[in-house]
């Protein structure tokens, strides 16, 4: 990861273009992830208009994939929204990490930047943050990165939605959605506390599955977090 990227001269336009350029190599991954989400939405039984609505309102692939089974099953509103909240909680941390660079900007601009926060835009921005010396230019860079991701995401989502309609159901492409979640989850297993939390969350979720509308899900997630924190503490405690 480049730490000492040289400071750049040039104004808003140069920063914006740099943002687009830095996003380009990652477009394929974002597009693939978006197509998968589009396919998963189409396969979930939602109508096309509903899928487009969900996609535009949420703009959060993981939360969309996580809530699709709940939406399809007609789970209680609170469970669906809380699940989305749990999956989106990482955005709070991203937001905390990004906010200091934009503190001097007006609220409306800060909110616009906040809306474009996602896993990939966050990583790209943090990597190049030091390149920009004032909040306004930095903001244009972030908007370049964020808008590129936004555009690729929504086009990919639509492609997935329409392509899925041409794909026979018995291919079980809904499985693609699960695989995407799995791919997001696997790297976190390198950390022992996270692994412990995951095992507990998984076990509880399976055990509590008979509860109506997967209402045990929230309990499983909370228990997983608690166990992960406890495992963290145990590791950090002096022996």
């Amino acid at each position: 990861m480049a730490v000492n990227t040289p400071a750049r001269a040039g104004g808003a336009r140069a920063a914006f273009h740099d943002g687009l350029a830095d996003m380009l190599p990652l477009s394929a991954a974002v597009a693939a992830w978006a197509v998968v989400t589009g396919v998963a939405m189409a396969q979930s039984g939602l109508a096309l208009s509903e899928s487009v609505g969900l996609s535009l309102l949420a703009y959060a692939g993981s939360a969309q994939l996580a809530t699709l089974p709940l939406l399809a099953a007609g789970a209680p509103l609170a469970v669906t929204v809380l699940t989305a909240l749990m999956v989106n909680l990482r955005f709070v941390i991203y937001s905390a990490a990004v906010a200091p660079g934009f503190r001097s900007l007006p609220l409306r601009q800060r909110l616009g930047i906040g809306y474009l926060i996602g896993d990939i835009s966050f990583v790209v921005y943090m990597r190049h943050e030091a390149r920009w010396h004032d909040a306004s230019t930095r903001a244009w860079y972030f908007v370049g990165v964020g808008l590129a991701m936004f555009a690729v995401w929504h086009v990919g989502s639509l492609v997935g939605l329409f392509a899925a309609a041409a794909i026979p159901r018995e291919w079980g492409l809904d499985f693609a959605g699960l695989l995407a979640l799995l791919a997001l989850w696997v790297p976190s297993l390198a950390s022992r506390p996270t692994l412990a939390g995951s095992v507990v969350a998984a076990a509880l979720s399976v055990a509590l599955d008979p509860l109506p509308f997967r209402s045990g899900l929230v309990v499983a997630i909370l228990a997983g977090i608690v166990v992960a924190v406890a495992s963290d503490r145990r590791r950090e405690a002096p022996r």
Partner: protein
Amino acid sequence: MTPTLQLWLAFVGIGLTAVVTRCSFMVLGERLRLPLAAEHALKHAPAAALAAILAPALLLHDGRLALAPGNFRLLAAVVAAIVMWKSRSMLWTMAAGLAAFTLLRLYA
């Protein structure tokens, strides 16, 4: 409440969670800083949520634990997880998982 209305309310709710979480610290600025302990706890939330969502989908079939080799999804998921662990590539992981699932479905 009709199912359609509930669905759209859920979409709005999901959208709100995305906006509120993304903008949280952008709104608060200097006014609130999370204690380190809380930040550490939150770090574990996505993995716990993903595990809790994935486990029943992969391990249960019609509400019963399905660990036998007959669970093609589970087998394919194991293949995909190994590919992800080695390659860290979303694309290869999807390809491997879908290929494994399709091969199992057609030939096993």
